[in-house]
């Protein structure tokens, strides 16, 4: 847990919390995968393909009116405006890998539960028992969403490997989750992808937006 400088970094501290929190929960295999996710630094080769799949889902490149921009253009813009390689983006990098593992959605992952409990404490100043009740309700809600998803699409493991309609329903699950952190991922991923597409003049042309003002317009 010690960094090279000998100090406990916040990052390592959070990793440790996540691992300790896992000690008595969740079935073995998801637990192992989740520990792996928490303890290994995400590599661009792992999260970029997931991001690329999400770009293909959020933006309808096959739409007849969609302009001639490519996922590469969007990826390039993300690299310029919201570089995922920055250390402060590490939670976002991990979230992509967590997101890709469809079966982890139904697991009671301590890191997510702890984060939600922390929000209840900080934002709403709720007591422990009330927090537990709310979280139990959230777990139930998300499990029922996932059950309905699995009933429709069958047992799926990877977002990247799923068919597009399953990908779409799965991404929607994240927007409908009771857990803030899942909704946050939905919102952030959608927001970043859209920002890095709709900054392109080709998009402006397609949507009928003239862009920069030319004072001659008023003459």
């Amino acid at each position: 847990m010690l960094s090279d400088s000998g100090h406990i970094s916040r990052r390592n501290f959070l990793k440790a919390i996540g691992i300790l929190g896992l000690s008595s929960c969740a079935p073995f295999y998801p637990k192992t995968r989740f520990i792996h996710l928490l303890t290994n630094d995400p590599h661009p080769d792992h999260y970029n393909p997931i991001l690329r799949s999400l770009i293909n889902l959020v933006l309808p490149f096959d739409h007849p009116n969609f302009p001639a921009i490519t996922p590469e253009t969007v990826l390039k813009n993300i690299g310029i405006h919201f570089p995922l390689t920055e250390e402060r983006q590490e939670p976002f990098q991990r979230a992509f890998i967590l997101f890709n593992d469809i079966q982890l959605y139904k697991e009671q992952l301590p890191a997510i539960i702890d984060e939600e409990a922390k929000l209840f404490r900080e934002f709403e100043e709720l007591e422990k028992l009330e927090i537990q009740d709310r979280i139990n309700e959230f777990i139930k809600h998300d499990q029922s969403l996932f059950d309905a998803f699995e009933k429709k699409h069958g047992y799926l493991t990877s977002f990247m490997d799923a068919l597009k309609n399953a990908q779409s329903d799965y991404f929607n699950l994240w927007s409908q989750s009771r857990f803030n952190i899942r909704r946050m991922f939905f919102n952030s991923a959608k927001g970043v992808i859209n920002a890095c597409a709709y900054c392109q003049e080709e998009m402006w042309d397609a949507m009928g937006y003239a862009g920069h003002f030319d004072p001659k317009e008023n003459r």
Partner: protein
Amino acid sequence: MRLKCDIVIIGSGAAGGVLASTLAEKTDKKILLIEKGGYYEGATIVQEELGARHLFADRGTRGAKDGSIAVRGGECVGGGTTVNVALCFDPIESVWKRWKSEYGIDQYSFDPASNDYGISGLNMPNALKHVRERINIHEPPDDMVNDNNRLFAEGCQSEGVSHKKFELNMKNCIGCGFCAVGCKYDRKMGTMITYIQDAIQNGVEVVHNCHIEKIQFSGQNGSKKTTGIQGEIVEAHDKSLPNKYPAGPISISAGLIIVAAGAVEAPSLLFRSNHPNPNDTLGRGLILHPSLPIIGVQDKKLVNYRGITGSMYSDHFYESHGFYYECLFGHPIYAAGMVPGFGTPHFDMILKYPQINGFGVMLVDTPVKKNRVVWDTYSQKPEIIYRLTVPDKDRLRIAAQKGVEMMFGSGAKEVMLPSEEPVGPLMRPHFNHRSQAVHCKDLQFRPHQTQITSAHCQATVSMGEDHETGILNSRCESKYVKNLMVCDSSSFPDSCGANPMVSIMTMARYQGERISGELARYDL
């Protein structure tokens, strides 16, 4: 780098710019005006959403700690007045009167014949008059009202809701529609091109790209006094004017320190400086004026993103329910963020952009202690902790329902809210008929499911003579540290009741005149 002055003002926005100008006009003191962001003249503005990120706090990504509410704030010379949409509301007399009765706020007389603190002509109407003239507050002519605003007025009329024209601080606006990313043509009369220019002409020195880390105090509890500030000048962004001083640590000694850094940065600076906080009130009671956009789709093309962004509003429900409707519109990235969903349905809606009209609900939120700004020592950043209260959610539901009905009244064929929340039988609040507006009663305003925005942070270092939450007295002076003032939106005891720019500027003009008449109080 070590500098010395009589008065240092931290923050160059609505308050800081006016304070600097007023003090320079009325005294012969050496004044420094410090700004964390850069100095971006109109010619550097690029009229692009991503291209304007350097003008904003956290490069436009500032929000509540859980990311649930985007909290816009200008971080550049002129502060919020550089990047707002020029909407002007005079200070509301009934609010200031309530502050007197609830918080014991003294003076701030609304009688134009008053001489507050025994200073000739010191009163709110005189201060307001100066502000109104200097920033050219006026109603726009009818021919500057674009389709988006005209439809808003029609929607109000159809529902029997009164509406008005905004007053704006503009001069010869050419209607480019890019107010919110800074005015390229210097037609918006923010402090950068008005009060700060006056201040510079009267000898004020502006130090920008300068982050103030701490205020230094001498003495013990009960007799603490400011001695100066310390911070760091950073390299200027390539679009900024260059700084007179090189990048590196800076220390400034000053007789009087005035913090005017806004309701997020001001409490943060006080926390970092270990300012006394005996009642745990510093940073608490944060007001955000949460805003909820309402989006309509008309059956014809409109002039929506060109022209004056906001020229119409309604205060019909202000007295009864505490909210406004304000006409606003967004450029493509904002629009793509507000339209719910993704993929083909989302893009199909974006293709209707030329037919879209919009306005927003602005809620005057209830002050509660748990909504607050804190300083996070790990990340070395301010954290905004905010949740809508239950009564505020109730009012926002009423506002949303009425707003949807008004949007249909304007002729919209579809109306939506920026939300992924299921309401009634609907997967999302996306309505095809006026009668469906009733489903707004199911909105929960869950973070990251319904998009709420804010640009009006207030009340985190509040005044209050006989109220336990008051960190400041009515002169905006710290009750615990001599010669330290906080004078900006954070000084308000709670919401000023409307878009705050003119209230802030009026208070700053008033306080600038008061300080000038009471220099001996600060050993100046």
